[in-house]
């Protein structure tokens, strides 16, 4: 397993290089100059700015940017917000988005696994049908619709704060809005795999030996049924990070989402690249952790075996 982890980590630079090149090409092909957005600037001022950002030509930027990152850990200054460096911007807003994402995925997992298990255990019952309907609605409801409805609800009833960031309670509604889609998938996954596991021989043996239903389901079956959910957590994290843009916009949360979109609209190339690279590193690390956890949870899985 250590070998697999090291092999995957060794692939990071290659994947990041591909991502960097792709984003760089798109960002530089996009017409528009970040320095010429405001009023007519003196050509010498523009030349100085370009010199500072190593942006005299695309080639120069292509080389200097990763060199800066690898040698100094510096993502460069932001082209749009001139007094701020990209490091400052990202590290100020990243924890917010990450916290929101983790909260949302946690809600989705706990509630989803619970509902899915109950639906599988009481199969064909009312709960089963409700859970499938919820799952279908969760996939079809865009997160901004849910977020807007929750915002209305919060504004009318004033139970929880409707926006902003600062306390735990202000994270509840956005996390719920963000968690509905992963929750829908997790409910379906858990239900199907739980149904598979409940038909196994060892369950029959355990019940025959006298173990109570609750212990059999929650202690023994759940561990086996959880595996597909675990491998879904990778894409779920990806969704939580991208889906947070909309939720952050609706609830006015100072996360990374606003910078994602605004940087592209402002042609702020350093910020675009910084955000994309940070995001990709996060995603790759999370996928790797999920794969490691997957191999660790189920000792029968042999990750060193080559897939077909």
């Amino acid at each position: 397993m250590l070998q697999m982890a090291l092999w995957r980590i060794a692939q990071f630079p290659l994947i990041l290089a591909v991502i960097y090149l792709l984003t760089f090409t798109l960002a530089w092909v996009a017409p528009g100059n970040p320095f010429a957005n405001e009023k007519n600037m003196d050509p010498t001022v523009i030349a100085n700015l370009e010199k500072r950002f190593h942006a005299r030509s695309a080639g120069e930027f292509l080389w200097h940017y990763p060199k800066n990152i690898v040698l100094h850990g510096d993502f460069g200054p932001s082209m749009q917000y001139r007094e701020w460096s990209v490091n400052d911007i990202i590290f100020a807003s990243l924890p917010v988005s990450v916290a929101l994402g983790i909260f949302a995925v946690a809600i989705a997992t706990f509630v989803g696994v619970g509902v899915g298990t109950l639906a599988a255990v009481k199969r064909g019952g009312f709960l089963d049908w409700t859970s499938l309907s919820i799952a279908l609605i969760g996939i079809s409801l865009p997160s901004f619709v849910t977020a807007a409805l929750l915002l209305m609800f919060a504004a009318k009833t004033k139970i929880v704060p409707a926006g902003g960031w600062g306390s735990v309670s202000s994270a509840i509604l956005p996390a719920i809005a963000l968690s509905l889609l992963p929750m829908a998938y997790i409910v379906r996954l858990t239900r199907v795999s739980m149904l598979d596991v409940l038909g196994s021989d060892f369950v029959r043996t355990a019940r025959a030996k006298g173990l109570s239903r609750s212990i059999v389901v929650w202690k023994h079956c759940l561990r086996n049924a959880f595996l597909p959910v675990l491998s879904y957590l990778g894409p779920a994290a990806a969704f939580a990070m991208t889906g947070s843009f909309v939720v952050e916009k609706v609830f006015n949360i100072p996360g990374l989402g606003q910078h994602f979109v605004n940087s592209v609209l402002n042609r702020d190339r350093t910020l675009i690249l910084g955000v994309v690279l940070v995001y990709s590193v996060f995603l790759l690390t999370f996928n790797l952790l999920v794969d490691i956890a997957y191999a660790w949870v189920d000792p029968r899985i042999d990750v060193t075996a080559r897939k077909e």
Partner: protein
Amino acid sequence: MTTAATDTLSATEGEILRVAPREDLFSRAMRSGRVVWGGGIILVIALASVLTLFFTLNESSALYYDRQNAELARVAPKAWPPQAWYGYDNLGRSIFARCLLGGTISMGVGTAAATISVVLGVIVGLIAGYRGGWIDSVLMRSVDVLYGLPYILLVILFKIAFERPLNELFGNAQAANLVVLFSAIGLVSWLTMARVVRGQVLSIRSMPYIEACRSMGLPQGRIFTRHVLPNLIGPITVYATLTVPSAILQESFLSFLGVGINPPLPSWGSLAAEGVGQLSPIRFYWWMLIFPCMLLVVTLLSLNYMGDGLRDIFDPKREAAKL
């Protein structure tokens, strides 16, 4: 899958009894309640949107999408005239008309994007599954890498990069906007289809009957068109039906963020964004938000429902995540 399952029992000479009905795909699909209901609702909404195009795009019609009227700003829905059914927005435009045109645009962009991603995914999946070897590894590895990219960002970048060149090419800003939008969405959505097609091609290729064809001397092209392709149509149809709602969802996300359809052209996502934008604790113009959201949800729900029904018919033993 497309072979007729007609069972004929000859009771007496010359008398043939049909025991089992002919099972062709369409009749099987029509028997599934999910397909009928889901497809029916979609058909109603799509027909309503497309058939009223004559009115919504016609500047002299009452249902013109951009008919601004300051006196009618933010007026609540009324039972008559028809353009007041959904109320009016900030500029006095009929939300009903805008929802109809928005429906055409959202569903049109979603379908076009899904078509691009289906074509791309099928081609890549076929090549990877059929050729195998290093081509397969390279293609699948790139699919894995692309899965990890933030697609929204790529869509936005792509749109910004190519919108102006396309504008100069077409001469029409709105057409350029639509084309670049569905191309961008299509280009990032083909990954799942590629994986599904590749898996299906691999499993078909290992079937005994393909080996029998080869040993009989059937040329590769013939094997492909007569045996492999008909068996691919089922899964492709299913995943194409499931790609359309995800494409519509992505378009609505982008329009909500302001980087999708350019105003004044409406789309359900941008209408929802306008509705959210005027939320305030003082006065809530619910019709500006509820109607576009409701239409969006009903459409997506029906499409997903129909896709689920089709998937149960064509691929009941699927191993690819039973989502």
